[in-house]
């Protein structure tokens, strides 16, 4: 592979990587091109290790990278692409030069092999054969030169604009275009010609066509994976983030979970660590002395060593009763992800009685934890009981660094929700937030106690899709650090 062809491949690979959730900056791209230039494209392992150092910056990214590398630079024809195969190929091409009939004819009967036909000087008189012989493709196929063939396919792919593929169903169409651009028609014409007259040559040429079709199809599929699959994924993610949580069907669960994990990771990295200098603690003598030079040695401005670590704490209470069951599943999943990244999160679940589920979330995998919560705490809603349970359980741990999030519809089957308990929580915590999956228009209708609830919260908000959830948690975390 030439360096130029290599670097365009590399750029495609980087685009592919970005689609796989590995962030690669333009600066990284430059480094990758340099590194590949230094290491060369001959040795796959060296290239893989070298690029890994430049492109993958964490264990998570490394595993995604290795997977992507194997997929993208797949050794599809292992006998010729692996370093061990390299020698074999040299041998093979040498021997075929020395003796062109070596690898094609094992039995020499009256039927002529393709090689014989092409070697035959009278072939020039036959227009079909002449066309076949002159095509670069045939030469590449015959010479067994993997590099030339790969280049030819690459050039044809460019001519056929294979990279514009957007839909999976376009594969057939693009494969055909690619083959046409390669000049496969000459092979097809020859095959038609030989079908009756030269059965052996016909077979050989069919085999060549088959292998060519395989390669073309691989190239097209790779183009789809690189250029379209990522877009499709992004589109699906985008769409899913906007869909009402209750409408998400079971087959989208896996994608949803991935999305939530990513969101929680993003939120955590944005808010995970903030510290603030505090004006007390141990005196920082060097800094103070240094500052005192300006004041003739009198330590006028003091500097302090202590750095205060702000530890934001979140307590999340999730309603898992029948009326919000469809949301609860996702909210629990989100809580699960959040607890994973913000270690000081405590999670509670209730419908009538309330209990802490923090340990389940840290011990069990997500499905198990969520179904356990639903099994134990599912039922009819009783906010009064739940809030009093919560206050018994956790009120003493709430302080001015605590944010309490309640996820629920505030429908209390027409009984008193004991909002005085809510007021108690509000008085002790930093922020009390109520997220309601119902639309704002429905608040206060029927048995909804949402309107009085809003008065006891710092923030009451509608939240029924992932995008809203992310925005709310984001503002919440910023506010938590801000003052």
């Amino acid at each position: 592979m030439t360096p130029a062809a290599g670097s365009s491949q590399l750029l495609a690979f980087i685009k592919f990587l970005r689609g796989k959730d590995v962030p690669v900056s333009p600066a990284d791209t430059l480094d990758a091109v340099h590194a590949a230039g230094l290491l060369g494209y001959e040795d796959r392992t060296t290239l893989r290790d070298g690029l890994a150092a430049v492109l993958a910056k964490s264990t998570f990214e490394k595993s995604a990278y290795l997977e992507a590398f194997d997929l993208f630079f797949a050794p599809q024809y292992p006998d010729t692409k692996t370093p061990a195969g390299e020698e074999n190929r040299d041998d093979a091409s040498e021997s075929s030069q020395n003796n062109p009939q070596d690898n094609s004819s094992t039995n020499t009967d009256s039927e002529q092999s393709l090689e014989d036909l092409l070697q035959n000087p009278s072939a020039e008189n036959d227009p079909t054969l002449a066309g076949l012989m002159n095509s670069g493709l045939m030469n590449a196929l015959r010479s067994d030169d993997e590099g030339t063939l790969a280049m030819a396919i690459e050039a044809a792919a460019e001519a056929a604009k294979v990279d514009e593929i957007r839909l999976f169903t376009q594969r057939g169409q693009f494969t055909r275009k690619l083959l046409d651009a390669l000049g496969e028609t000459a092979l097809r014409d020859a095959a038609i010609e030989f079908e009756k007259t030269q059965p052996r040559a016909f077979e050989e040429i069919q085999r060549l066509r088959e292998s060519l079709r395989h390669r073309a199809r691989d190239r097209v599929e790779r183009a789809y994976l690189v250029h379209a699959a990522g877009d499709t994924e992004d589109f699906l993610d985008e769409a899913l983030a906007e869909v009402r949580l209750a409408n998400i069907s079971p087959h989208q669960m896996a994608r949803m979970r991935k999305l939530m994990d990513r969101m929680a990771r993003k939120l955590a990295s944005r808010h995970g660590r903030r510290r603030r200098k505090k004006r007390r603690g141990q005196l920082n003598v060097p800094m103070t002395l240094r500052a005192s030079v300006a004041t003739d040695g009198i330590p006028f401005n003091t500097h302090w060593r202590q750095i205060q670590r702000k530890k934001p704490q979140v307590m999340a209470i999730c309603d898992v009763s029948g009326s919000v069951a469809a949301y609860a599943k996702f909210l629990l999943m989100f809580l699960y992800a959040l607890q994973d990244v913000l270690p000081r999160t405590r999670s509670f679940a209730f419908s009538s009685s309330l209990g802490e589920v923090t340990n389940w979330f840290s011990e069990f995998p997500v499905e198990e934890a969520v179904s356990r919560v639903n099994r134990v705490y599912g039922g009819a809603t009783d906010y009064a009981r739940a809030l009093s349970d919560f206050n018994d359980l956790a009120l003493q741990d709430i302080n001015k660094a605590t944010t309490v999030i309640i996820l629920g519809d505030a429908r209390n089957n027409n009984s008193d929700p004991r909002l005085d308990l809510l007021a108690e929580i509000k008085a002790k915590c930093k922020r009390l937030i109520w997220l309601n999956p119902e639309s704002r228009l429905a608040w206060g209708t029927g048995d909804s106690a949402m309107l009085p609830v809003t008065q006891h919260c710092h923030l009451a908000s509608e939240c029924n899709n992932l995008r809203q959830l992310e925005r709310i948690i984001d503002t919440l975390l910023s506010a938590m650090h801000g003052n």
Partner: protein
Amino acid sequence: MDTTLYPQLDDVNAISTAFGDAGYICTPRIATVVYLAAALNKPILVEGPPGVGKTELAKTCAEVIAKPLVRLQCYEGLDEAKALYEWKYGKQLLYTQILKEQLGDILGGAKGLKESIQRLHSTGDVFYAKEFLEPRPLLRAMEQDDGAVLLIDEIDKADFEFESLLLEVLSDYQISIPEIGTIQARSKPMVFLTSNDTRDLSDALKRRCLHLHIPFPSIELESRIVTARVPELESQLSDQLVRFVHAIRELDLKKSPAISETLDWARSLVLLHANQLDSGLVHDTLNVLLKYEEDIVEAEGQLGKLLKIADGL
């Protein structure tokens, strides 16, 4: 590209050989990354469990290229005054006191406040000159005339803010001192950062580095390391020992033994003139390998099985 500075590092295979000669058996992956770091002038961020030879890699590199090793050990609370530079405030204070009397000479004959100030200005910022600057490791590494190895050890122990402090050094090999200006590295050092993965490093820092993860070695590699480092150990015993350590890593331990512990154990066995691993010997020396009482108890419970594996059964 500054290949002239570190000619020992301009070929992947040569690096493998040179490091091997210096007693550091490195995988092709490590050699590739070291080569790229030298060629691209980029720092290497080395991650991995404790004791797999992260710090050793930097030391060996210094040995191979025959340049001084400047080491900065990170800890919580490390700040620029300890890592970059510090003004010699004592000297500054002393000099201002002493030189107070000189003021009369400088200002002698000056008419009016304006002229006096003018004269003072013309003397320049004498107290914030290089003479009053105390270089700390990072600045020292920048000031080496023909290359150095800068080792920033256990960067994950330092505060988050400290990482930001490093960015200028790592990407441009320069240090900005407000009072003086920017100090450019006289020659670009090879930079190694090590991290035990106790916390995530910032993306900004990671972006400026090549990333190298060193895992626990394979049996074959560890045997080679033991042979290179403890040549006195008989090869049969060394194989047995490495297999034993690998089996022990499979157990559910609080702290798995790393290469450094394997080497310590090998050296202990040499001192004890052992020529065969048996349960008595292992029992007496297991505390070299394992650092927690509960781990030792756990391993001793399975000693028979472990020894069988060590014997290759």
